[in-house]
């Protein structure tokens, strides 16, 4: 069965972790993951799910920690140039928007 990110996020929260949810809300070009793809992040550094082929998860996790600290959601824009995308292992040259929100 495909991973239930919300269930994982809920379980982490029940275990006392601070949790944020990142969701792909818009994509252009050949982004690897469709809108609705999710990544759950804890303050302690746990990750579940994905919002790209691995290229922006680190940046999204950092933004998620900022959101958990501030309590405010954020809308992140990722434009991936072809050259840069290749360098970081994502050859698609896609663009995407990711919404990051703390679960509170």
């Amino acid at each position, binding site marked *: *069965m495909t991973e239930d990110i919300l269930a994982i996020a809920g379980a982490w929260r029940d275990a006392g972790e601070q949790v944020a949810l990142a969701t792909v809300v818009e994509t252009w070009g050949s982004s690897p993951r469709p809108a609705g793809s999710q990544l759950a992040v804890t303050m302690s550094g746990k990750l579940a799910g994905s919002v790209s082929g691995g290229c922006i998860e680190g940046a999204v996790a950092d933004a998620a920690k900022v959101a958990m600290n501030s309590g405010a959601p954020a809308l992140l824009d990722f434009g991936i140039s072809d050259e840069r995308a290749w360098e970081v292992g994502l050859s698609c040259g896609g663009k995407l928007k990711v919404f990051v929100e703390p679960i509170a």
Partner: protein
Amino acid sequence: MRAETLARLQAERAAKRPVALLTRLADGAQHLFPGEGVPAALAEAAVAALDADAARSLTLEGETWFIHPYTPPLRLLVIGAAHITQALAPMAPALGFAVTVIDPRRAFATEERLPGVTLIDAWPDDAMAELAPDTRTAVVTLTHDPKLDDPALDIALRSGAFYIGALGSRRTHAKRIARLAELGHGPEAIARIHAPVGLDIRAVTASEIALSIMAEIVAARRGAVLGEVRPGAMAAKVPA
């Protein structure tokens, strides 16, 4: 997201009810649909997103909303705990299908042969009537036995199942068509049955046949036009 919203969303999903989460991207304000009063345009977009099983955005009075549908799992109902079923059962969940196997022959429908699969040992007509196939359901008959396959196909054809497949050769299927016609099914209804079941990938083993069936189910679900050559595919062919 408020923890309370997450809990309600998960409760709806656990009850296998389709639900959409509507998020105003400017500030993270959220509604669940159905259940909470939302503007008509948002409700309409939520219904469309649930139908298409695809997230979308909507800009309403200068504010962008993200509409995230959460739909119940797709279902695969298999008639017959056959050898192919054993190959199909572990493949389908990876593709998002919850599998139920119906076989009144208790020697076949065992937990040992199909670990972790929902097994029903009732007659296919009773079981199918109970399971009520809908537009998120695929039905595959694999018993080779008209006594078991036909009643299941009869109910599948009267349902909204998005895919109906039946194992058996063209000759077997010709006979089956005659029997289903006697049950009152017209040519258009009978044409919904994919038979011989599965895409023609020259499958030989049970696993390969299971793969061809799952590929055909995915194609039906995604509205693929089969037989089309992908652009550029010819270039990859080795010249004779």
